Every structure is written in structure tokens, then in C-alpha cells.
């Protein structure tokens, strides 16, 4: 279970990497499409569900991954933490899930006011750091005796 805990922590972190890469890839593709091919992006084009340019897949990956896959991973991560007996592990899994919830909310509100998008980018760093730390600390705990820490573990 401890291995599963580590795996899910790293999967959430990997998800953030995919998110950052896919959205920048898509924006770059959009820029090239408009700039070099004279593409016209308006609401109708935006809503067309058509492949205007190949990199539009990046927006889809970002949406699908951000709205479904990463939240599901974070939820499973928290459930795994209940069973993993990692000292302090539940708290860190909960922080990760909280950061995911905030991240999704900022992503949604970014469609209303762009400033939330700014915070969405910053919170991505926080989420990534939390997930990486949650994974790393299992490895570091494994190199040390953990019995005393277990006494103070929150449930």
C-alpha cells in the first residue's frame, strides 16, 4: 500500500506536468494557425468541435485531464492514504486533493476573469510541489525508523 501511495503521489505530479505541457503546446499551435495560416478563431470556431489545427488536442487533453483524470487520481490517492500507514500521509494526500479542488475551481473561474487564470498557473506549482513532496517523504521515511512518528499520525 505504501508503494501505491508513492505511485499515486507521482501520478498526480505527472498529471500537472502533462497539464502544463499540453496547454502551452495548444496555445503555440493556435498562434501559428492564426499567424501563418490566417485562421480565424471566434466563438463559432471555438465551439465547432472540429480540428482547426492539430494542437487543439492540447486543449482537450488539458480539459479532460484537469476535470476528470487528476481529480480522480487525487481522490484515489486520499483513499489509498487511509490504508497506506504512511506517517502524516493522510494529511499530505488531503493537501494534494485540496490543491486539486482549488486548481479546478481556478480553471473554471478563469473563464470569467482572467486573473483567476494567473492564480491557476501559480497554484499548479503549489500542487506539483505538494504531490512531489508527498511522494518523496515516503522514500525518506523508509530510510529512517518510523515507529515513533506513527504515534502522532493523524487519522
Amino acid at each position: 500500500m505504501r508503494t501505491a501511495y508513492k505511485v499515486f503521489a507521482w501520478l498526480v505530479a505527472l498529471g500537472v506536468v502533462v497539464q502544463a505541457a499540453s496547454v502551452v503546446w495548444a496555445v503555440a499551435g493556435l498562434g501559428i494557425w492564426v499567424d501563418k495560416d490566417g485562421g480565424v478563431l471566434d466563438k463559432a470556431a471555438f465551439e465547432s468541435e472540429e480540428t482547426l489545427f492539430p494542437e487543439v488536442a492540447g486543449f482537450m487533453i488539458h480539459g479532460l485531464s484537469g476535470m476528470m483524470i487528476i481529480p480522480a487520481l487525487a481522490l484515489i490517492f486520499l483513499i489509498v492514504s487511509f490504508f497506506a500507514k504512511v506517517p502524516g500521509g493522510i494529511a499530505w494526500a488531503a493537501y494534494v486533493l485540496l490543491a486539486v479542488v482549488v486548481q479546478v475551481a481556478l480553471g473554471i473561474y478563469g473563464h470569467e476573469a482572467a486573473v483567476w487564470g494567473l492564480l491557476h498557473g501559480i497554484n499548479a506549482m503549489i500542487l506539483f510541489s505538494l504531490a512531489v513532496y508527498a511522494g518523496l517523504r515516503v522514500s525518506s521515511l523508509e530510510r529512517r525508523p518510523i515507529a515513533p512518528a506513527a504515534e502522532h499520525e493523524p487519522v
Partner: protein
Amino acid sequence: MSSRLRLVLACLATAALVVPLGWLWWSSLMPDEYSVMEMGYTDLGGGPVPAGAPGHGAGAHGGPHGGTPVDVATLVEDGTGKADVRLDLTAREESFTLASGREVSGYTLNGASPGPTLRATQGDLVEVRLTNENVPEGVTLHWHGIDVPNAMDGVAGVTQDAVLEGETFTYRFVAEQAGTYWYHSHQISHEQVRRGLLGAVVVQPAAPGTGSARPGTGISTGSSAAGQFADVEALVHMYDGQRTVNGQVGDVEVPADPGTTVRVRVINTDNGPMTIWVSGADYRVLAVDGTEVNAPGPVSDQALVVTAGGRADLAVVVPEDGARVELAGNAVVLGPTGVDVRAEPAPTTFVDLLTYGEPAAAGLDPTEADRRFDYVMGRRPGFHDGRPGLWWTINGHMWPDVPMYTVATGDVVTMRIQNDSGEVHPMHLHGHHALVLSRDGEPATGSPWWVDSLNVRDGESYEVAFLADNPGVWMDHCHNLPHAAEGLVAHLMYAGYTTSFKAGGHARNEPE
């Protein structure tokens, strides 16, 4: 802590997370077959309970004058006379080639997409025979903007069953309103419309001097008291990422002598609002959604928004060196053959139809409204038929638990359409035209502004009014068709009427 206790606590914590989510998921699942009559809850808009209205929950309990409810399938055009205009349309799923040379896999009507333009004169009895040759999911035709009898409205699972492979359905209606409209499938509409099951409808006024069609060109010419004019429809549709005008890409040339007036009937068949403007000339907005604007003034350096499903007829007096009607990357070029007109960038200011034109009697008194409805759009996370996501809400309720707007024939109805959802929504009410009364509390002061497709941007609140004079069960939905498929759909129901058609089931009806 003992390991057994720890395990029990872990299981309880897991259950505390999973059980509510599972319950939300399970309760959102739709049955294989359902009737819109059973959907949501009755909303009487503060009016009296009309005869035949249900007491609790939606669903007809009696006829409009008591007795058994009237099935909407019986609401057909009166009379069995010979049609003035007949059109046979055969729907096929196939590959076809755009003018740009791009091969598109989609749907055609009589081998082409857009399908043939239906041309009629005001007052004509129109008869369209739709045959489905090979579309496995079935097809229908909805007459967008034409207030047809309910059984002719073409909504699969509400007003008819989808026309399956090898079947034929005949639509008959009187083209009572002159103007620009369009037809499209209302079976799996978010996919079938996008992939080409659509065409234009032009109803010329009954007055003398109207144009005659030149087959195949989409251009009709004629003469009026004011002299020669041309009349052209510009049906904008995106195929496979390629925006087209009447199926063509780039500049669509319409030869016109300088000094003549050209009526350009712009039809937006895509899923989002479109910004249009004219390079090289002023223009007037002659009509919106098939209704003439009263005393339309000249517009210069301003763009016009044509919402998804909406239409705008522009009048352009052709200058010596031509003009371009700019349509999202393509253009209709008016002028002598081969004229080269410089494309101007999109203006940054817009025609506001709230104040455009001159006031006139609208023939509807909203101060005496019998019912006042709210249609407030929002968005929240949840499950839609088992799929997790961020879904639309109407008055705080998620589909299918949405209001059933219930009216009696003859009611004057007002509706506040408010958008708190974070995205623009082109709202389309079937079978009726609504008069815009105000936007964000600012009253309409221009020409009476009648719509069937209203662009409601995020944060905006419109008040509209309409006369409930066309009995049946009518969709009132977002014409960003994927949004409709995501649950942004409600219905306007006349008390005492019911539908025996069902979504899903053996008929495989899927209206959105």
C-alpha cells in the same frame, strides 16, 4: 491504535468519500426511454393553474378544456390541399467534397450540403418529403425560426419519431412569415447539424415585385419599385474546421451593378455567435431572425453579432468599387465581376439592436402578462447521466430536473433570461417569436426586436415577451448544440397537451 480499528476507520473514511459520489452518480442515470412530459417540475410563472395542467410534477392530466389531453402529433397544418411548394429531400451519410477540394465525411440532402434552399412566397403551403436513405441513427428536419404547427417542428422524441433508414416523413406548413430561416436535423442535432444536415429557407413577401430564384446559384434577382436588386443568402457553416459560405470557401462573388441594393441574408448555422461587418460600404440591418426592422438606419464602422442559429438580412448599396460582407474569414463580394475590394479589419464597436431602428407598435402588451418566467442559467459540478463534469443549470436545477414552463393558449408571457454560467448562450425558443423588452434593466427603445435566437452573454439578463398562440410542447434551449446535449434544455408546455413520443427506447430518438 490497533490495526483492526485502523482498518475499520480507513474503510469508513473511504465509504464517506465514495458513497455520496456513487449516489450522485447513480441518481443521475437516465432510463433507456423517457418522456419529456415526466421531466422536471411544473412552473406556472405565477399565473393561475390552467385547465389540464398537472397538479404535481410535470405531465398532462387533462385536455385544454378538460377531458383527455391532446396529443401533439395531431397538431398538423389544417387542410389537405395541394401544396404550392414541394421539395423532396433525401438524407444520406456520405463523403462529399467542399469547393476548397477538401473531402468531408458527413451528411447530405439530395447529395449536397448545405441542402437545397427552400424558396417560398408568404402564404404558400409548403410540403417537404424527407426520406432517410442510409443514416443509421435516423434524421428529422426542424424549421428554425418558422412557427410551424407543433407536429411539424421536427424534434425527435418530442414532436415525432426519428425518420429511420428507408422511412419517409412529410412536413406540411404554411409559410406565414416572410424572411430568412433555415432547416436542420433535430435528431442527435449536436452532431448531425455540425456534419451538414441543414439548408436555408427564404420566404419572400407576398407583395408584387419579388425576386425569382436562379437555381443553383443561391442568388435571386428581381425588380422592385426602387429598381433592380439582388437577393442572396449567405449560409455560414463550418465543415471539418473549414468555415464556408453556401458551401464555398473564400470570396463568394455576387455580380451587382454599382448603385443597386443587395439584400444579403446571413444565416449562422454554427454553435457560437459570429461577428459580421461590411468593408467598403455602409449597410442597414433590414431584418433580424426573419422579422423586418422598423426604419433601419445606416451603419458604418460597426459590426453586428449574429448568434448561433440566428439570421440577419443586410442591405448594401453597391459602391463603384464594390463592397465585401465579411463573414468570419470568408466574404460575400458585391460589385462588378472580378472587383477587388480591400478587406477592412473588424470594427471594435457593435450595432446594438436594443436601440437600432425606430419604435413601432409591437402588437403585444407585456404589462398585462399572464405569466412571468425565469430562465436563469448557471453551472455547477455534478453528474449528467452518469458522466462527471461541470454541467449547466436552469434556475439552479440540473437536467433533467428543469422547469416545465406551463402556459395556456392565449397567455401573454414574459421571461427573464439571465446568464450566470460563465459562457455565452444563444437561446432558441421553438414555435414562437419573442419580443425583447429590456437588457440588464435598460428598456428596448429601437425597432421592435423580435427574436427566435437570442445571444445572451455571460452576466447579461434579458426580459422577453411572447404570445402563447401555438399549442404543443416546444423546446426552449441553447443553440450551442453541444450545450443542449449537456442539459441546457427546457420545454414550454401548453396545458392540456401531451406527447406520446419518447426519447431513447426502440425509436432511438435523441433530440439533442
